[in-house]
């Protein structure tokens, strides 16, 4: 079965009224997005700020419901799943944010933060935390340290450890390497490739940087103003882009 199916997903937001008695304008943040993602594969979601890529990620994570269309995870429609069933399914899809400093509690040990998704399903287990730390290239003893004791790249490793501790089949990485320095970015990209091969992870990789996306993704979906500009294999998008907008992104990334 296909791991993740996104079918004609549309999300609209009502904008504030511009004047009394005028109907509020409606912003279509995501307009009929459609894609599939298989186990062990990586899909890149590329667009500039305001393109709707994060909104789409929020719907894949079931933080938000689509106005139209369906998000199917292992065949289950996340929007109509009862709350208890959704909670039971959550360990199977996890999110890594851009800023690990903002997403880790500074007053708790990283071991506590990594165990958070385990506690949510009552399976707090130190052995799992230690294993996750080692899988991301840290030491199991690091569990007792606090976020400020780590460098930026190590903190992102901690955030990835938290995401994989529940053995998910899907990882959503929202600009997960954008805040990192160049020399550290390559380390984290390699880590994601390692984890993908070891654990058979599917990755939804959201980024504004086409050269990063091209280095790790099997296929790419390009978004602009909520609409899908182009969707195809990395090879096709990078070597034979059909749309002028895609070509402009390739130029802007300094790839031509």
């Amino acid at each position, binding site marked *: 079965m296909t791991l993740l199916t996104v079918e004609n997903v549309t999300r609209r937001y009502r904008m504030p009224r511009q004047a009394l008695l005028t109907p509020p304008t409606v912003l279509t943040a995501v307009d009929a997005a459609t894609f599939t993602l298989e186990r*062990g594969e990586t899909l890149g979601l590329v667009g*500039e*700020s305001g393109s709707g890529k994060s909104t789409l990620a929020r719907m894949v994570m079931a933080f938000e419901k689509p106005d139209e269309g369906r998000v199917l995870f292992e065949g289950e429609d996340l929007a109509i799943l009862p709350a208890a069933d959704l909670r039971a399914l959550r360990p199977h899809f996890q999110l890594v944010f851009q800023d690990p400093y903002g997403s880790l509690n500074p007053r708790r040990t990283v071991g506590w933060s990594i165990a958070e998704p385990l506690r949510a399903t009552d399976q707090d287990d130190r052995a799992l935390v230690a294993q996750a730390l080692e899988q991301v290239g840290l030491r199991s003893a690091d569990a007792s340290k606090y976020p400020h004791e780590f*460098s*930026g*790249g*190590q903190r992102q490793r901690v955030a990835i450890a938290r995401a994989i501790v529940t053995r998910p089949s899907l990882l959503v990485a929202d600009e997960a390497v954008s805040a990192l*320095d*160049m*020399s*550290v*970015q*390559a*380390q984290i*990209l*390699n880590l994601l*490739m*390692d984890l993908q*091969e070891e654990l058979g992870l599917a990755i939804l990789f959201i980024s*504004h*940087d*086409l*050269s*990063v*996306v*091209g*280095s*790790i993704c*099997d296929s790419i979906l390009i978004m602009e103003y909520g609409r899908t500009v182009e969707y195809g294999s*990395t*090879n096709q998008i*990078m*070597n034979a882009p059909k749309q002028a907008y895609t070509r*402009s*992104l390739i*130029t*802007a*990334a*300094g*790839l031509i």
Partner: protein
Amino acid sequence: MIGAYNLTVAFGAAQALRDVSFEVHPGDRIGVVGESGCGKTMLGLAMIGMTPDAAKVSGSLLLNGTEMVGASENSWQDQRARRVAMVFQEPMAALNPIKRIGDSVMEPLMVHFGLSRKQARKRALALFEEVAIPDPEARLKQFPHEVSGGQRQRVLIALALSCDPELLIADEPTTALDANVALRITDLLARLARDRTMALLFISHDLAAVARATQDMLVIYGGDIVERGSTADVLSQPKHPYTQGLLAARPSPWNVREIGGRRKRLPTIPGSVPSLANLPTGCRFAGRCPFEISRCAAQKPVEREGTICHLPEAER
């Protein structure tokens, strides 16, 4: 001509910049490349006399013959804007949010040149045209939040140009912008430097932008200039092991899977940039360098042929 000679910025025993020397001539476009925490922003701030109070600046910084190391804030204010001006990374933070854009741009013109409001307005419009802001009349009346990030950055560039500086320092001017907008701002800065024969110090971590905008570049690591040369040479034949590692670690967008489904890993530099408190005393790259020999950590290498490294070129 503007020159830095053995310029050092220290916080106690920690040197954020160590013996940095370079000269800037009219029309030079120089890229400054490095990772965060390596000292590239500190270099920009030292060039414009805005280092934090706790910093001790030593060495020499000559702005057209005037020694600026140890200069008073008053003499810096004379030099700033006319000799050197700076564009910062975050255009929203650099503009007063409760002032109309026009007032922000006109104020320095009235203060520095004693222009009347009417003259200052005329000059502001000319500057907006020079930086290609569409509908400049309307922009003058708007507030910063009403214009896009790219337009705000253009306003700041116009502001920095208002006193016709000899050197414009742009510190990560495109980092907060979308790729297409960033490209246009990069091109704008390069064009302004050419049109005005103004020097440009383009500080960025983005190698593609530096390649596009500059003729020469400095690579900075741990407060040292580890490599310098023409941008084309440094990017095509990097000499310092750090520059080599940095260029190799760039993600390749054509990284297709090999047979068996494996994907090629990127070459990496082990570890991360050392913090100011943990800088090695010798070569700053010691501890991360693949070619390290015994004297690297203890002894500072001397510069030869555009790079500082203990090893002869053939062994790197």
